[in-house]
């Protein structure tokens, strides 16, 4: 029965790819889903593309290892950045009608900055899709006994088929299907678990002391198992890593660019932010429950990453295990297809069309997009084996973000909000930030920072700071772009009246954002 449930899911996913294929007329359809999606579709895809390996197994493993403080990756490390993206950055990304973040960098800075970012981003997406593939294979291996190699190849094959057929539209439609499957497959875990352990109070009584607070034990790094104090959390996670990912990573931004108009593109991240507030229910709480119900992980025995699959095995009867497994699989596939579509767009639009074949026709670009999806899936099989060599998926991902997204955030922040930033200031700031990150990663041992997580957080802070300062310094001595060229590209030079139609107060992005902020404050007080 479990196999049947998985097979049905695969059939659906591929079927959607075939249906959508007939609807792809232009490269805009393939890479940007025709810019026709309502806010709820873009919003669910926005959050679903991020609900890959990190969200499910990684966060659950983190909660098992560090306690409820892991929720900071949502409430501090995602929601504020998502609100900032929606209110201040989307008018620029969407308003400039760019296909990708590297294309925005070309508009704001120069071709060199776009090229640098496109190459690095393309490499990062392949490394990240390998993580999802490895995590998926791990699940198959543990719960169904399949070999890791077979599982990796099967998942790559399925994603290659449906993404190459329907491009971003197919990817987005499947991501939304996957979003609902994830919720329906995993929601029972906290319900059953909390009722078994005696609710939240019963749970907090049975987990180690300090594991149930998010701020109370952060006065010093030594007070909490994550090994990071409140300042490190706020600067490293809450500011650099979080804003670096949510405001610059094309994987998520691409989903918002598929919205049908600027209001929808702003509401899409807001919908995602609201979902992030409640996502700990299926991603963090199961990790805490696993401490009680599946004890002994990580003590020289099985990996923390197994907390979620083992909990599924603990609770679910036959058939329901199939649904739980399908939910996990859906998460990994949405994470992976997100990376693959982002890679395909950046490769085709920012690299191939710019440097290899500038005269390519629209139909040729669709063809190239399809080929690049297949190639990306093949390369991801290789990067899955790199992911296997890291002890924790979460640490591996955060290490990548600290090297690549953190400096990019400084480049985009200065570019969007300070018109004095110059093209070469942006380029040299970005490259110096990345080199600093790599140097810190290679030459400064983790023991210097305390824990792997602390190393990632502080590395992100220093790479951002370096990029920020170098961009400032170089901008002071190099030639700036004329103001006319920056119209619509820099925040101070956009015509807000033109893009922000008069909406009723309850429908304005700012109203939605304020409601989310109020909820955020409430949950922080409750779980302080």
């Amino acid at each position: 029965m479990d196999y049947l449930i998985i097979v049905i899911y695969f059939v659906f996913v591929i079927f959607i790819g075939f249906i959508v294929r007939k609807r792809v007329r232009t490269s805009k359809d393939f890479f940007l889903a025709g810019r026709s999606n309502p806010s709820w579709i873009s919003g669910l895809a926005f959050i679903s593309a991020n609900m890959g390996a990190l969200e499910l197994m990684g966060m659950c493993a983190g909660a098992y290892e560090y306690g409820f403080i892991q929720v900071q990756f949502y409430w501090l490390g995602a929601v504020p950045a998502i609100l900032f993206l929606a209110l201040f950055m989307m008018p620029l990304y969407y308003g400039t009608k760019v296909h990708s973040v590297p294309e925005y960098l070309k508009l704001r800075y120069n071709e060199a900055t776009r090229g640098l970012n496109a190459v690095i981003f393309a490499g990062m997406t392949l490394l990240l899709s390998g993580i999802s593939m490895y995590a998926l294979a791990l699940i198959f291996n543990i719960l169904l006994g399949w070999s890791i190699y077979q599982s990796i190849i099967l998942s790559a094959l399925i994603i290659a088929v449906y993404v190459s057929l329907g491009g971003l539209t197919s990817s987005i439609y499947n991501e939304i299907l996957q979003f609902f499957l994830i919720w329906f497959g995993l929601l029972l875990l906290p319900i059953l678990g909390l009722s078994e352990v005696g609710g939240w109070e019963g749970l907090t009584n049975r987990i180690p002391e300090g594991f149930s607070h998010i701020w109370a034990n952060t006065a010093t790094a030594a007070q909490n198992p994550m090994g990071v104090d409140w300042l490190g959390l706020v600067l490293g996670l809450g500011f650099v890593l979080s804003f670096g990912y949510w405001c610059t990573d094309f994987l998520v931004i691409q989903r918002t660019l598929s919205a049908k108009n600027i209001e929808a593109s702003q509401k899409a991240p807001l919908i995602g932010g609201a979902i992030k507030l409640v996502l700990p229910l299926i991603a963090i709480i199961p990790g805490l429950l696993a401490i009680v119900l599946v004890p002994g992980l990580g003590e020289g025995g099985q990996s923390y990453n197994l907390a979620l699959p083992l909990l599924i095995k603990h609770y679910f009867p036959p058939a329901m295990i199939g649904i739980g497994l399908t939910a996990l699989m859906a998460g990994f596939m949405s994470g992976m297809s997100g990376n693959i579509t982002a890679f395909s767009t950046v490769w085709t639009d920012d690299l191939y069309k710019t440097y290899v074949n500038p005269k390519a026709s629209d139909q040729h670009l669709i063809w190239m997009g399809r080929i690049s999806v297949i190639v990306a899936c093949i390369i991801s099989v290789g990067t899955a084996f790199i992911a296997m060599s890291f002890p924790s998926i979460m640490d591996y991902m955060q290490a990548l973000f600290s090297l690549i997204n953190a400096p990019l955030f400084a480049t985009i922040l200065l570019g969007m909000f300070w018109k004095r930033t110059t093209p070469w200031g942006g380029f040299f700031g970005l490259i110096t930030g990345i080199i600093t990150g790599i140097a810190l990663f290679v030459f400064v041992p983790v023991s210097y920072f305390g824990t792997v997580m602390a190393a990632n957080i502080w590395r992100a802070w220093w790479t951002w700071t370096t990029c920020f300062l170098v961009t400032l310094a170089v901008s002071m001595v190099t030639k700036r772009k004329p103001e006319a060229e920056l119209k619509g590209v820099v925040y101070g030079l956009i015509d807000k009246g033109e893009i922000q139609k008069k909406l009723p107060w309850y429908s304005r992005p700012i109203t939605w954002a304020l409601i989310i902020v109020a909820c955020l404050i409430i949950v922080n007080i409750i779980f302080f």
Partner: protein
Amino acid sequence: MQKKQSENTFVDLKFFLGLLFIIYGILLAGTGIYYSLNPVVGIDSSIDIYWGLFMLAIGTINYYKSNKPSNWNKAFAISGIEQIEKRLKGILDESVEEV
């Protein structure tokens, strides 16, 4: 009165979501009922039954409210005409400006 169609056009997600949940709901509830009639030690089939029925209900609602495949081609054609109209309007506007 005309039924309110879901917002997206030529491929309706609610249709897929509804269909998938109906199938899963039937499979889950069916398995649960089978195990409740043929009990096996250590298997709590009630979870399958109530969660299966829940998924079935959600699936049925979505399926009912969805835009069916028979309408997709029509919607696709309309969207194509709209695109052509938009393109023609652009050309017309440019010509007017030039004049």
